[in-house]
């Protein structure tokens, strides 16, 4: 046993001692003038698959090397950071496009990459408060490219208020208190709904990206307040879970559901009349723009705006069959 470990330890030491030589050689070989952009998604879901398509499309158009890291199977730094670091270790990465899975936890790992000379653009979610224009410990990324979540939340509040006749109880099902994007949606929604004196927000639940939990929580909320008139669900998991709960409670149609993210399933639900409003972000455009700006910066040093904000599209029962809107469905 002991012998085994001495053997193992000495072998590892040998490899480590020889490693820097090989590693440097490897990095140089991979760099050779070609631009390499790494896309690090937040979690395996249709939103990021769509973004990957945008990233790849622009990469192909520009003839640069695109590396897409493994899609994390759960949401959180403990799932994302090991994938990020292992993928970067391959060498030759000039820029990382990343959806940070925590506003705080990703600061240090990304700063470490930045210090090595790698450029960072955050997509969909950001570090700190997302304001990279003033100097702070998290202002090193070139840009945030993604939706204005607070604005989307306010707009959803207005649309939902219209649907429920500007009165009654509303409920929010969201994912995680530590994620910038969904936190912004809820904040915006609260602000938006506060303008309506006859609408009362009865609760906000965090499902931590587990769809089944979103269903359970929404069912519980409907039991507590059976007269809930409207529900806002902040992402794919929340919407699909909340919608399932309304169906299970037999309240389809009586409760208006506004959801975020136009997945194929949500659009199908909208067509069936099970949900009433779907906000579509533009993940494809976010990925596409990120590569475009990243390329400009890497080639001629063009200054990238600190925030690039594509708008939203709204799907309702009235316009869901419009072929012009088809491109905004995440598939």
């Amino acid at each position, binding site marked *: *046993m002991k012998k085994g470990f001495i053997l193992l330890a000495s*072998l590892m030491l040998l490899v480590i001692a020889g490693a820097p030589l090989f590693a440097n050689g490897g990095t140089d070989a991979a760099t050779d003038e070609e631009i390499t952009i790494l896309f690090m998604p937040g979690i395996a879901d249709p939103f990021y698959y769509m973004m990957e398509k945008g990233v790849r499309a622009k990469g192909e158009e520009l003839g640069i090397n695109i590396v897409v890291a493994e899609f994390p199977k759960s949401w959180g730094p403990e799932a994302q950071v090991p994938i990020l670091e*292992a993928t970067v270790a*391959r060498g030759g990465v000039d820029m990382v496009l990343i959806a940070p899975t925590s506003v*705080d936890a990703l600061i240090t790992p990304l700063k*470490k990459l930045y210090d090595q000379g790698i450029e960072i653009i955050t997509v969909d979610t950001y570090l700190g408060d997302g304001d990279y224009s003033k100097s702070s410990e998290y202002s090193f990324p070139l840009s945030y490219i993604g939706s204005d979540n607070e604005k989307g939340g306010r707009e959803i509040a207005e649309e939902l208020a219209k649907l429920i006749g500007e009165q009654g109880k509303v409920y929010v099902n969201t994912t995680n208190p530590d994620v910038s994007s969904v936190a912004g949606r809820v904040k915006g929604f609260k602000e938006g709904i506060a303008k309506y004196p006859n609408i009362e927000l009865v609760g906000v639940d965090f499902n931590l990206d587990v769809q089944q939990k979103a269903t359970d929580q929404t069912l519980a909320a409907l039991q507590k307040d059976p007269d809930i008139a409207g529900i806002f669900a902040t992402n794919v998991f929340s919407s699909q879970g909340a919608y399932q709960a309304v169906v299970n409670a037999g309240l389809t149609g009586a409760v208006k559901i506004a959801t975020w993210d136009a997945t194929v399933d949500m659009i199908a639900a909208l067509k069936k009349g099970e949900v009433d409003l779907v906000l579509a972000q533009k993940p494809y455009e976010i990925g596409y723009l990120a590569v475009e700006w990243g390329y400009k910066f890497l080639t001629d040093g063009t200054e990238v705006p600190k925030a690039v904000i594509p708008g939203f599209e709204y799907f309702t029962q009235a316009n869901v069959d419009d072929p012009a809107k088809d491109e905004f469905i995440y598939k």
Partner: protein
Amino acid sequence: MNAVTKRKTTNLVMELGRRWALIFLLIELVFFSLFAQGFMSLRVFQMIFFFGITVFLLGTAELFVIITGGIDLSVGYVMGFASIISAKMISAFIQAGMQHLPALILGIVLTLIIGLLPGLINGLLISRLRVPPFIATFSMLGITHGVAELLILDGAAKNMPHLANLIGNGYFLYWAPGPGLSLFIRPEIPRGGFILELIPNIVILAFIVIGILAYVLKRTVFGQHTYAIGGNVDAAIRSGINVGRHKVKIYMLSSFLASLSGVIYVLMYVTGKGDAGASSLLDAIAAVVIGGASLYGGKGTVWRTILGALIIAVLETGLRVMGIPTFDKYIIVGVILISAVLIDKVFPEKTYTDNKE
């Protein structure tokens, strides 16, 4: 003559068979060094240990429990629970006006003490009320998960001092051309400049704890009793070991290690997260089994468990460096697990538990 050679060969085969895990790890290292560009580097080796800490600690916790013939399914969520209470307490202490270092130490110490509680309850349920370990610890998994989420309803567990980050993401030794050597503090260097960073602080911390526990298991009465209970409970009772009390200690130790992982998580990621360790539970149990322990109890060692954890960590990191989706990891780990049990049947060990080796 012939018989002697034959026995020698058989001995060699037996010896190699018993060391299959070590040989497998070496094969992994050679394979990835050849086929994964960028794998053979100091950075990747340190990465394997750095991100492997959770499984090392949870695996060690699981090992002690498994040697007694039990199982602890709660370690992953006890870890998440500990990450949330430590982050909440530390930020509360700082808001109350405490200095960063004392706040950090107090928060960590209190978390490690509170973290003994799930283990105490598990242990009492199992030893006094005869609740099967699977059920007791599975219930504790749910309870710690639920409580952790209740605690973050009013806001995420964050706002850690920068010091936590410095410890959690810092290295023991730095060297850069110009500033030269420095301990613990990263020298300021120009962006893109060369810097050598050696041994992450928390890897040192984790291995001190693991080293102590390896010693305790192998060389102390506590360790002997642990093996005795798993080997033959009746004999252990007859020889005067207070089995119930010992089991309570074992589950508390397991819970302590899970809480320590939670604290380390907070140092690394400066936030607490309820499901921080959820995905590590199965890897931890797999590490123990690959390391040659039996789920029936009575055998297994700390270093073999670490070896088992390394086999999984190297595989995962290597596949990522190669850019192969780690779905394949699940398949490979599954195959290794089955092989581990079969190989250990074919090459019965002399007993890992004896001290003569």
